[in-house]
């Protein structure tokens, strides 16, 4: 993943300063072609700012980015024809119909006449918009609008698709369908960079970067990240969840405790040799009935261990 033909995005030391706020600092990343690369991070972690720098909407304060083999600085307009961008907020026209929106975008990208008609028909079929084609975009549901936005973003068959929290306003079912479309596009060779704050979405990415307050705190493929958390995850199933959580949080070698329904997820650094025994020892004085077992780290555990400093 080092030759320019195989790398869609290469950024080195990318930083963006807004007045006092350092939105992104010293971010480097490499996105291989035809892959789905995820940005996972809470709101305000610099996901949108990074995406905007990558498509030339914002100028980095320092650092540089190469996209599709070209430096973004000075090539923003040339890259526009090769990049598809889906904004966080729905940005097509609410007072135009589905078909009118798509023909507008088609003309903007130089597609006219029969070629435009055929492409629009094809997209309407693929993204299940045939019945809505005369409906005004503003009156559609979140899922439909999002499919329309994706159809508009891929209309000119871009090599790189930048999606800024595409599913934040969409129900789970539509989200699943949406991801099926993304896999289809990646299969066909499109590189996709998608930002999200949903763990289940992050899990589907080929590669993942976790951002926290403008800093990339971890990256790799999801499995690798889970393997290399440096944490043991112990699940505690017991009656006095609240008290157990309090006791465990007070222990200095426990990294974090999260409640999940009636169970607790306890993270302990791997240097702690016998995690189950350690947890057992901690909780026995409170609740002897609680069950304890070692489980595999989930992506959420990765996220927690990467974004929270151990010192607390």
């Amino acid at each position, binding site marked *: 993943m080092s030759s320019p033909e195989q790398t869609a995005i290469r950024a080195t030391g990318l930083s963006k300063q*807004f007045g006092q706020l350092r939105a992104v600092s010293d971010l480097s990343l490499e996105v291989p072609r035809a892959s789905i690369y995820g940005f996972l991070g809470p709101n305000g972690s610099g996901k949108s700012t990074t995406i*905007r720098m990558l*498509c*030339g*909407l*914002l*100028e980095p304060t320092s650092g540089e980015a190469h996209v599709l083999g070209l430096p973004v600085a000075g090539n*923003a*307009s040339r890259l*526009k*024809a090769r*990049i598809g*961008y889906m*904004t966080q*907020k*729905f*940005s*097509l*026209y*609410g*007072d*135009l119909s589905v078909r*009118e929106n798509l*023909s*507008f*975008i088609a*003309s*903007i*990208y*130089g597609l*006219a006449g029969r070629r435009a008609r055929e492409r629009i028909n094809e997209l309407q079929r693929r993204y299940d918009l045939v019945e809505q084609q005369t409906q*005004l975009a503003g009156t559609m549901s979140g899922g439909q609008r999002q499919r329309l936005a994706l159809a*508009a973003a891929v209309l000119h068959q871009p090599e790189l698709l930048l999606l800024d929290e595409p599913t934040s306003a969409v129900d789970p079912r539509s989200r699943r369908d949406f991801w099926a479309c993304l896999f289809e596009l990646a299969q066909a060779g499109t590189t996709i960079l998608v930002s999200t704050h949903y763990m289940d979405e992050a899990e589907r990415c080929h590669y993942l970067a976790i951002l926290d307050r403008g800093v990339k705190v971890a990256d790799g493929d999801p499995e690798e990240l889970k393997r290399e958390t440096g944490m043991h995850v112990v699940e505690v199933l017991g009656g006095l969840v609240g008290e157990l959580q309090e006791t465990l949080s007070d222990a200095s070698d426990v990294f974090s405790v999260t409640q999940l329904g009636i169970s607790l997820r306890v993270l302990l650094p791997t240097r702690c040799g016998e995690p189950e025994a350690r947890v057992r020892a901690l909780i026995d004085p409170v609740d002897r009935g609680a069950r304890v077992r070692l489980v595999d780290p989930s992506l959420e555990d990765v996220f927690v261990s990467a974004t929270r400093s151990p010192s607390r």
Partner: protein
Amino acid sequence: MRGGLLRLAAVMVKEVRQLSRDRLTFGMVLGMPLMQMLLFGYAINMDVRDLKTAVANQSGSMLSQRFLSDVRQTQVADIIITTDSPQSLENLLRRGEISVGIHIPSDFDRRLTDPNRPAAHLLIDGTDPTITAVANQLTSLVPDAPSGLTATRHIEVRPYFNPEQRSAVNIVPGLLGTILTMTMMLFTAVAIVRERERGNLELLINTPVSTPELMVGKVVPYILIGLAQVALIVALGQLLFEVPFAGTIGNLYLGAVVFITANLSLGLLISTVARTQFQAMQMTFFVMLPSILLSGFMFPFEGMPAFAQFLGECLPNTHFIRIARGVMLRGADVADLAGELRSLGLIALVALGLAMARFSRRLD
């Protein structure tokens, strides 16, 4: 090049489609001229008639009676009160019950032959300049001296181009420019801000559409709308107020195209400065008010101080009102209007150039 035209056409089609669905804006296109014409044409009537008048005739002579009947005939003054002393006239005036008081002294007939003493006194409510101007006309009614002594002939006023001095004739051409200023500038002032507010702009600036394509595409549909408004206003002016049309409609349209473009460009410039639609409207009013007050629409341009005149010259409306009055009332042709057309063209170019330079294709 083909791609550029395609994109330009796409922006124009999009604008027209959006406009056709925006009932409020569409209503403004038709309703604004209609409402303003009726308002300015009927309500803001500068032909002052039937001023409330009181008379204190201390003479009662034949000549004084004749003078008063002349006053009545002008229809400028409506004599509603007859009293006996100048003091009571003053009181009536102070209380606002009358606008004009006529005092005829007891030696009226004798005074008529005496060039050193005024024959009668006209007491006028000076708080309203229009009333003052109109009431002054009454001074010309002082009757001729009875005997061979010829009284001073008053200067006869012969207003050209509007012999009956109907204000609608003056107002309609000015109104044409003022209505177009209001609607046209507002359309484009909110145009780009609205797209920014709705998030459309973030998508647009990420496509190959260029700044000139976007700007020109937004301006052209509104030029057509503006020309339709011109037709509507001119037709209403003829229908309702019988405003004459001395020149050719082609000349008026030539001026209108340049004028509308100048206004739309100014609107675009506002749109690139304002952050919200509300700000854009505020800034529009900032231009609108001088366009009404300093353009010669309401007050004569010649009477303004040099600085106000300079500001007026920077406003498209000033130039267009001259064009419209010239074409509609004097029958002026292109050669007469060349200077005004040049000024309008210059304003349009400067505003459009600034708007394009200011429009950022980035978000920071």
